């Protein structure tokens, strides 16, 4: 094995030598990203352009799919024997990708400098079974955003510290007739709903799995879903939430039609942009609340990483590109949309300027990040849970029954 | 030398046998008409001669060479189709010259041949047109021209005149006759029209149910039909067929007292007591003037003047006959008359097999 690899390498070198006399061989990388989230499409293109300028011999083709297509595209491209070189992956996929040999193990490529500089919590995004399958890129969790103006009108001085408090404040706003339904969530039958649910699960001290078996049917897992159902049926939650994805939440919040919204980091600066938003300057952000007696704050690990596919023919160049995309310099430059993975960036005034409030929330939220379960069968588990959440919300089943059937359907 | 020989041709489509052993030998220059009603197999036979269909058994010889399995183009034949089958997207000139074009005849030679043919058919002025710009008769001429120009050993015509109106049909018929007399090529011509058959053919093959009922000259087919079917098919209005029985004194017609003389030609075949069908052509009947010759007493039912003749339908006892009389004959429906005829005009057939009982 080793020997044949070496022979191949020698062969490649010889062939390469044959070509170097001519023009510099150009490498083309194909990279798969997600359309519109933390970093917008334009941002990713700009970052990539900077990389291309520095590395004229490497061309990077970018591809953007919605989050819902990211997983299937990556897996399906495996079959084509070289669809992508670099793929963006969610924190929940390394287990499955490792089991199916989708991503290259890059543990050895990570330098000491990286090891020390990147926030320890961020590393969990790309790890499975003690190995690293890429670099964390988007460090993200869900925060509670609130509309300062509406809270003020309702006579509320402090944003909520617990979920119960959130419900009370929302009720006050509703009763005063300020808003029909003050809270917006992303509860569409999609991964987004799981993120909101996981945030609540972390607040209530629940567990997804215990010893590889579903453990969400009781305790914190059940409390979390019950909270969602109560909030929905009491009318405090915008009923359209069950059809919302994150962008819908942002639109509603920006339009001033929600007092509270649970969403990712990226919403902070977009909702504060007067060109985009009607509530610019009135956006408040705190970590997602805790549950009385159980937690101070809650947070879901919604980070994403960049990895090299096992089928890539240019792993060296791909790694170079990933290093560029995750470098402190690049991350700091775009810190308005997604907070850097680098610990020292949080002390850098260049980064914190204008988003002190967000940084403050982030320091507490990121530290409390709760993982969704790491299992190769995550897709099935998630699909089952999404269904359970929707069934419970729609009153087709009690929260308990819904979770029980989810546990049965999870394949675990 | 026989130009075309058809030997024991059979054609089966699965269970159905449409040709049941056809044998014909044609001399060079003959004009053979395959006559029969639709479904008799005449078109299938023509297609087999052309090579557009393969026979299930038997052999076809053109110019003494077997052409079984030979591609149509190599059989030295030309065919004119009922629908003309002109190439709609090609000009008249190219239509006519197509066969030569396919055979790589040089353009100048081809052009000359096309012009000669067009002149012959009086369609020179139409050469640049497309078929859609032609009248029915013109299309017919182009179709014939396309066949003529190739100067083949055998011409095949598949009901070529049936799409024309009556007047044009007569003109084209005469035209075909003129062409044949001039060119003296062998022709096989399919039609269901007995007038065409009678006027054009040197020999007629009357076909029925995949068999040849009679193969003979037009005169013979008319004067000495071999079967009841031929007798009924050729001639208009068709031959009267009456049921009768042979007795000692002659032919006793059913349903009346009339006894007709037994013609000499049938003497040997008809013994006393035998049932027969008696045929007599309407045009053989005359109104009896004096007392000479055989008589048929009849009640006139309908009288129709067609112009050249007076067609009358009458009853003889319980049987019905038609007679064609001179136009000015004074005849009223409801009146009683007697018809007379020449004894030789009678035809006798076996009622079962339909075969003629003629013995000489």
């Amino acid at each position: 094995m080793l020997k044949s690899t070496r022979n191949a390498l020698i062969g490649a070198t010889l062939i390469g030598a044959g070509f170097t006399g001519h023009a510099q061989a150009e490498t083309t990388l194909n990279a798969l990203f997600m359309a519109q989230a933390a970093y917008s499409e334009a941002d990713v293109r700009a970052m990539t352009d900077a990389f291309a300028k520095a590395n004229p011999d490497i061309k990077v083709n970018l591809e953007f799919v919605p989050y819902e297509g990211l997983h299937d595209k990556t897996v399906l491209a495996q079959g084509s024997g070289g669809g992508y070189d670099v793929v963006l992956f969610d924190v929940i996929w390394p287990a499955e990708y490792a089991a199916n040999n989708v991503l290259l193990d890059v543990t050895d490529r990570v330098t000491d400098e990286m090891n020390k500089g990147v926030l320890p919590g961020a590393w969990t995004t790309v790890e499975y079974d003690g190995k690293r399958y890429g670099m964390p890129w988007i460090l993200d969790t869900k925060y509670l955003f609130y509309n300062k103006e509406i809270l003020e009108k309702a006579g509320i001085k402090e944003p909520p510290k617990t979920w119960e408090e959130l419900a009370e404040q929302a009720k006050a706003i509703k009763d005063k007739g300020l808003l029909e339904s003050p809270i917006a969530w992303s509860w569409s039958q999609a991964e987004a709903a799981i993120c909101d649910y996981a945030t609540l699960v972390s607040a209530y001290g629940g567990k997804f799995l215990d010893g590889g078996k579903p453990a969400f049917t009781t305790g914190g897992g059940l409390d979390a879903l019950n909270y969602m159902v109560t909030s929905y049926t009491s009318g405090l939650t915008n009923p359209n939430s069950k059809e919302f994805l994150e962008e819908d939440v942002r639109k509603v919040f920006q339009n001033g039609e929600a007092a509270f919204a649970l969403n990712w980091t990226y919403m902070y600066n977009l909702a504060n942009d007067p060109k985009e938003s009607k509530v610019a300057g009135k956006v408040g952000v705190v970590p997602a609340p805790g549950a009385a007696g159980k937690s101070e704050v809650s947070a879901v690990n919604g980070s994403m990483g960049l990895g090299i596919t096992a089928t890539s023919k240019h792993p060296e160049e791909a790694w170079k590109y990933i290093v560029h995309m995750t470098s402190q310099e690049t991350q700091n430059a775009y810190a308005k949309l997604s907070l850097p993975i680098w610990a020292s960036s949080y002390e850098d005034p260049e980064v914190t300027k204008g988003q002190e409030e967000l940084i403050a929330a982030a320091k507490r939220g990121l530290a409390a990040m709760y993982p969704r379960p790491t299992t190769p069968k995550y897709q099935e588990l998630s699909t089952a849970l999404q269904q359970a959440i929707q069934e419970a919300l729609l009153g087709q089943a009690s929260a308990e029954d819904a979770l029980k059937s989810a546990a049965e359907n999870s394949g675990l | 030398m026989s130009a075309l020989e058809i030997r024991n041709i059979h054609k089966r489509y699965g269970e159905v046998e449409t040709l049941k052993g056809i044998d014909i030998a044609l001399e060079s220059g003959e004009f053979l008409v395959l006559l029969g009603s639709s479904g008799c197999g005449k078109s299938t036979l023509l297609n087999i001669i052309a090579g557009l269909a393969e026979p299930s058994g038997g052999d076809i010889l053109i110019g003494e060479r077997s052409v079984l399995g030979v591609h149509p183009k190599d059989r030295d034949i030309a065919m004119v189709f009922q629908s003309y089958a002109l190439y709609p997207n090609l000009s008249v000139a190219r239509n006519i010259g197509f066969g030569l074009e396919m055979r790589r005849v040089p353009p100048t030679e081809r052009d000359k041949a096309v012009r000669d043919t067009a002149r012959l058919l009086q369609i020179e002025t139409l050469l640049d047109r497309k078929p859609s710009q032609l009248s029915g008769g013109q299309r017919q001429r182009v179709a014939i021209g396309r066949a003529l120009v190739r100067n083949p050993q055998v011409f095949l015509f598949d009901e070529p005149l049936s799409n024309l109106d009556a007047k044009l049909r007569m003109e084209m018929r005469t035209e075909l006759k003129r062409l044949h007399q001039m060119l003296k090529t062998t022709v096989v011509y399919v039609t269901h029209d007995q007038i065409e058959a009678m006027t054009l053919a040197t020999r007629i093959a009357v076909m029925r149910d995949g068999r040849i009922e009679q193969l003979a000259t037009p005169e013979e087919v008319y004067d000495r039909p071999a079967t009841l079917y031929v007798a009924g098919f050729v001639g208009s209005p068709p031959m009267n067929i009456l049921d009768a029985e042979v007795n000692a004194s002659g032919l006793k017609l059913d349903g009346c007292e009339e006894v007709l003389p037994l013609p000499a030609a049938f003497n040997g075949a008809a013994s006393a007591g035998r049932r027969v069908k008696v045929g007599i052509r309407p045009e053989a009947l005359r109104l009896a003037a004096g007392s000479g010759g055989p008589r048929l007493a009849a009640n006139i039912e309908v009288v129709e003047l067609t112009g050249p003749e007076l067609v009358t339908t009458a009853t003889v006892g319980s049987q019905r006959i038609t007679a064609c009389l001179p136009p000015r004959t004074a005849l009223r429906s409801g009146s009683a008359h007697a018809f007379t005829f020449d004894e030789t005009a009678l035809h006798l057939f076996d009622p079962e097999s339909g075969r003629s009982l003629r013995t000489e």
Partner: protein
Amino acid sequence: MERQSPLFSVFIHASALLLAVVILAPVAWLLIMSISPAADLSAKPLAWWPSDIDLSRYRTLLSAVENSAGAAFIASLLNSLKVAGMATLAAVIVAVPAAWAVSRTPAVAWSLYAVIATYMLPPVALAVPLYMGLAYFGLLNSVFGLALVYLTILAPFTTWLLKSGFDSIPREIESAAMIDGARLDQILRILTLPLAAPVMATSALFAFLLAWDEFFYALLFTSDLRAKTLTVAIADLAGGRVSDYGLIATAGVLAALPPVLIGLIMQRALISGLTSGGVKG
């Protein structure tokens, strides 16, 4: 022929108006969304008419600046053109001889019926082995691979339409040409195909529209700019992560433009093609 009472006439005109509104309103709204400023589209109450006309999205999607959203859109547009074009061409190429054979030799017709019956198969029934097979031959994420799969959707259909086209060309013409000494290829080239040209054009257009519309296989078998077709690109846009509804609408308008134009221009031919398929079954 029939006398119409005034009341009946009013009823007919009212129904016609209703039908026109039902047909037009959604399409009109798509157009309006594509030219409305983003703010108008998230206004409450909704602005039905754009406050001012915003064509920037058309510029965005049609600009070919490298690595821009426009480039991605144009790439998928070109992919759709390539895939549909190749599949259509190939379908006509295999359909012409097959349709001619069936039209002239009914004895082989049963094989065409077997081929047409594959229309019943849900694509999901073939997707997994096809996926693996395409992967094996390196044809995943390739316009050629997708065109090959589309070929099998288009070919039965094209063959059927062409067959009825050939049926209406009298076979005597071909017999005559055969006796005249034309070879099969000459007969087809000089006579039959020119005569069948209108039918061939109609079937080709039909096939093209079918390929342009296909989504499922494209979703599975293509993944990036090299092969992703327009339908997949639009489904990606509509997936809920694009906040500017106008941009989604614009992509829809652009994707609908070619088939709608073909549909309106070729209306008569298309309807006769549709109904001939329908009537003859």
